[in-house]
C-alpha cells in the first residue's frame, strides 16, 4: 500500500482531503458532517488534525498511535501497511 505522509502538509490541503470524504476541520480537530468531533474508534480520543491517519476501509480516521494502527490491522486483516 502506498503511504502518503501528511506531516508537513498545510492544514488547507488536509482540509481538501478530508472534504473529499465528507469531513471537515474545526480548530485543531477533525469533524464529521454534523460538526461533531471525530473520535478514534479504537482509543476513543478526538482526532487532532496534526496527528491523524486516514486508512482505507470505509474511510477510517484515526489518532496516530501504535494501538490504533495495530487494532486497525487486526480488524482489516488483509490490509498491509
Amino acid at each position, binding site marked *: *500500500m*502506498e*503511504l*502518503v*505522509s*501528511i*506531516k508537513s502538509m498545510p492544514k488547507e*490541503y488536509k482540509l*481538501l*482531503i478530508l472534504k*473529499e470524504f465528507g469531513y471537515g476541520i474545526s480548530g485543531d480537530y477533525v469533524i464529521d458532517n454534523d460538526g461533531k468531533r471525530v473520535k478514534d474508534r*479504537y*482509543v*476513543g*480520543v478526538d482526532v487532532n488534525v*496534526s*496527528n*491523524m*491517519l*486516514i*486508512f*482505507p*476501509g470505509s*474511510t477510517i480516521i484515526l*489518532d*496516530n*498511535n*501504535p*494501538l*490504533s*494502527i*495495530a*487494532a486497525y*490491522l*487486526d480488524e482489516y486483516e488483509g*490490509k498491509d*501497511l
Partner: protein
Amino acid sequence: MPEEPDPLASIAKGVAKGTYEHAEEKIKVAAVAIADKIQYWIKKFRQGELAFIEDEKTIEVVRNQRKKPSWKLFRRYVKDPDLRLQIEMGLSLKALEENKKNREDLRRKILNRYGTKGLHLAELSQRGLIDRYLWLLLDETQDEQELRDGIEDLLKNVDRYVEFVQAEQDIERQTKAIITRLRAFKPKAMILLCKGTQAEENAREMVDDVSRDVEGYRIEIMENVTNFVETP
C-alpha cells in the same frame, strides 16, 4: 504641451505587471498540480491502495513488532485479539522507551481502552516477562492445547500469577497468599517482581518460605529487569 511619459516609469510598470502576472500564473499552475495530486491520491485511496499517515515512524514501530518471533507465537496461541493487542502494546512501549512523550501518550491510551489490568499486562510484556513466561510454558507443557490454555490463563489472570513484592509489606501474609494460590490454581509458573534492596530481600525470604511449603517448582532469579513495571 502635453507632458512626455516617463519611459523609465513606464518600463518599471510593465515589468511589475509582467512579474505579477507571471507569479499569478505560477500559483495557478501549482494549485492545479496540487488539486490533481490530491485527486490521484483520493482515487487510489478509494481503491484501497493508499493511506494517509502522519509519519512513517509509528507505522514502523507496529511493523517491526509484528516481525518478532514471540509475537508470531502469541498470534498463534492467543485467540483473544484484545489480549494479543495488550501484549503487542508492551512491545510498542519498549520501542518508545527513548521517547517519553509518545510512551506516556501510549500508556494513557492503553489505560483508556483496557484499564489498569490491560496496562499492567502491557508493561509486563514491555519488560519481557510475558515472553519469559511463554518460554517457561513451552518447557512445561505437553501439547499445543495445554500451552494455549496456559497462556490464556496467564493473560486473563495476570494478577494471580504475577506478584509485586514491595519494601514495606507483611511478608508472612503475602507468602501465605502465594502458597494458597499455588495450591489452588497449580500454575506452571509464577513471577515475583521487586525493586530495591529491601524489596529484593523480602522476595528472597518469601521464595525460601514458599519453596519449603510447595514442592515441584524451579526457582529462577532475573536481575536488572530495567524500568520496573509502573502500574500500581
